[in-house]
């Protein structure tokens, strides 16, 4: 009998041993005690954001010292998931501030009344990035970046082929089977490129363009990393396609020997702007407003390129050396009215799926 009990004893020993190294046993839930104690003044401010959000730790400490609030960051999913989470929980918000809703999703959040009005003082020059249609100034632009077609300069030099420059070039048989891009339904840069073509060819013309593009051997992947890291000639996996959809900042990451081996085609760009806003029904509106202001402060703006791979909205901020040298921004990127995007996203994506999976 005692032998039969051995596994029971062994199991309990194991259970005891492991409970010391579990998340529950370790008491690492320092901030899990919510506002449940019913303190009169909130002690923390909760930021809801997407999983690309990251800021240097010293900056977060600086905010906590200046504001007197602990900063709790809840980061999950991408901009689409973030927006939909905010919409679904608008009656009982997940936090005080949201950061990361972009200009392709912002209208949905505004229409649903997710944000409370807060007119943060913008740095000079940042007015340009305001969301068209946001007359109450519920959303504050924090950063921007352009989705642009990138080319491998070394490949084109080696093959004695002139680099493409325009959207039309991409459908030119000279560039057959050279372009790889993430799809619009599964990737945010992919969606931005669909919007580029809608802005360029009109609501009734983009379908033709995409037919030509697909006939010319454009290759679709699920996400950005599949296109850039596997199929692009300058990506990690050394693929065989020298034209890829990426960002205006990407050339700053392919520098070798003092020059970049890739460049962005500045006539093929769509501008993405990311916004911050105070959530309607926030438990700590004061902390929320301070956090929005903080995101616009010169220190945070200067940290954006290296932390989140985006450009600041404050044009006076100095960029990192390689960005200043190799990451050129388009002067006149394509744009689609956010309200239009919100109203037509469903139809456009359905049409796009039909054309590309033919």
């Amino acid at each position, binding site marked *: 009998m005692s032998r039969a009990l051995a596994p029971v004893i062994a199991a309990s020993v194991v259970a005891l041993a492991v409970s010391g190294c579990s*998340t529950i046993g370790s008491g690492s839930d320092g901030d899990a005690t919510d506002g449940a104690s019913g303190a009169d003044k909130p002690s923390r401010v909760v930021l809801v954001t997407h999983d690309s959000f990251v800021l240097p730790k010293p900056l977060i400490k600086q905010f906590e010292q200046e504001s007197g609030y602990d900063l709790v960051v809840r980061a999950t999913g991408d901009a689409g998931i973030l927006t939909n989470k905010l919409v679904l929980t608008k009656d009982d918000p997940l936090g005080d501030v949201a950061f990361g809703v972009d200009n392709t999703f912002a209208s949905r959040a505004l229409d649903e009344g997710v944000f409370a009005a807060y007119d943060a003082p913008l740095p000079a020059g940042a007015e340009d990035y305001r969301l068209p249609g946001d007359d109450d100034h519920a959303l504050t632009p924090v950063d921007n970046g352009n989705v642009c077609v990138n080319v491998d300069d070394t490949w084109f030099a080696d093959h004695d082929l002139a680099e493409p420059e325009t959207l039309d070039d991409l459908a030119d048989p000279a560039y057959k089977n050279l372009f790889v891009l993430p799809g619009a339904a*599964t990737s945010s840069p992919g969606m931005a490129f669909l919007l580029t073509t809608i802005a360029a060819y009109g609501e009734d013309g983009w379908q033709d363009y995409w037919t030509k593009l697909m006939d010319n051997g454009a290759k679709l992947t699920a996400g950005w990393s599949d296109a850039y890291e596997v199929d692009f000639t300058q990506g990690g996996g*050394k693929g065989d396609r020298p034209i890829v959809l990426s960002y205006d900042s990407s050339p700053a990451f392919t520098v070798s020997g003092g020059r970049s081996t890739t460049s962005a085609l500045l006539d093929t760009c769509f501008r993405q702007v990311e916004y911050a806003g105070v959530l309607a029904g926030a438990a700590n509106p004061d902390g929320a407003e301070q956090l929005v202001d903080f995101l616009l402060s010169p220190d945070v703006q200067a940290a954006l390129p290296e932390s989140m791979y985006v450009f600041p909205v404050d044009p006076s901020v100095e960029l990192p050396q390689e960005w200043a040298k190799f990451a050129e921004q388009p002067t006149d990127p394509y744009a689609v009215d956010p309200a239009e995007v919100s109203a037509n996203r469903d139809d456009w994506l359905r049409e796009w799926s039909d054309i590309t999976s033919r």
Partner: protein
Amino acid sequence: MTTPMTTPMSRALTLAGLAAVPLAVLGVFFVLPVSGMVSEGFVVDGRFDPGGVLEVLGRPRVHRVLWFTVWSSTVATLVAVLLGLPAAHLLHRRRFPGQRVLRSLLLVPFVLPTVVVGVAFRELIGEAGPLGFLGLDGSAAAIVAGLVFFNVAVVIRAVGAAWESLDPRPAEAAAALGASPVQVLRTVTLPALRPAIVSAASVVFLFCATAFGVVLTLGGLRYSSVETEIYLLTTNLLDLQAAAALSILQLLAITGLLVVTGRLRAVPDPALSRSTARPPRPSPGDWPGVVTTALVLLLVGTPLAALVTGSLRVGDTWSLANYRALGGEGDQQALLVPVGDALVTSLRTAVDATWMSLSLGVLVAVVVTRRSRSRTERRVRGLLDGLFMLPLGVSAVTLGFGFLITLDRPPLDLRDSLLLVPIAQALVALPLVVRTLVPVLGGIDDRQRQAAASLGAGPLRTFATVDLPAMWRPLTAAAGFAFAVSLGEFGATSFLAREDHPTLPIVIFRLIGHPGAMNYGMALAASVVLAATTAAVMLAVDRLRVSSVGAF
């Protein structure tokens, strides 16, 4: 509780008592969130309006998507079973050096993030890859291969555990009476293994049917499954009506599957005797097992080898720089936390998820395998059995959004709780645990328990002397599964994880999603670290189980 004169009333109470905890957990963390999310689709502008949902079900696109899901999952399940059975025989019924290492290696795919596996696969089969000439990139064959890659270990491990416990004497007797090896397999071994095989196959089917990343990445956007549709509809379009329609479709399909497998699993006279014989060394007659194991190793090993190679390349030279970079936060800050920290978070979460799913799983397995005295009782037990499979078949997105909208107020104000991640992972692992335990518990002759009871053993004593010894091997196998599921889980975790404590798959996902050659190399290196940790843990579990089995 159980005395020789058990009344129907007290039996019902015992059943209810044992089932109460698992049912409560399932109710709060599964039924409530999923029904909350689905009902969003039925209520339009505050009115109940099922018309929209029904309209979606009539769309040709939905039919196409459903058809693809069914056939691709069926094919992948068949391939996984065909490859897995001979491999299970070799790895669990034969004895040779390096066996344990192989067994733990085969579980590695289970924990690798799909995004990394997708990249590794596509580097092999892509246009520029060494296998590019096969033209597999973006094909349905690539999707099936990916699904088999992830799931073949389920068959090997679950069936292998049952095979180990199988009494070899009936097969030996048949052989002595002149049956050929094929006849022995067909008439003795396979029938005895059927419950385990059907169990493993149904789990694999559910994993395949709800696979998300594999379908998108390897299918090049040409194929949609029910799961990818729900993801798109919920996260991008916020079309909750259509998402609800597809979720209901998922639930119906799974229920159908469970009814069918429940029938197939049922064995008229289950009798399991534990084998204590030391397994023999492989003989020439074991060639089918050797060949398929080699095939499985090739399928699993090639992408893994590509991963390791990639992680050791910096530019055009070999280097350990990617691994060294994992220690700090990296100068480009793409690393959220040092990989060591993320690994510790992952392991801690996995420990929690494992004990949660094991304790729930044992309760469920005990409840559903006790011999029923009436038809109603048998129905109830069968229903419970199926109920706990459901979490595998429902989209992680539906569950994740459901958590947000239903667990937001007292007494269930849990959406910010640290427990949510391990609980969600435990729910995913629970069906695996149950499916590994049930065939063994169901195979115990109830007369053993009756004998123990009549000799004066209480229910706990009976459990410890009759059930637990038989359960010990599958229990460790299940623990390994649960641990691996938790280590690699990405869908629910990414939805729920908190920035300050990201798990390793989340760190990897972030690394690979940003430009910079170094980030790419580091993502591969971090994946290798995750894979190596998993293999080491599995190896340790394997050892633990062998030494304790020696006590009997």
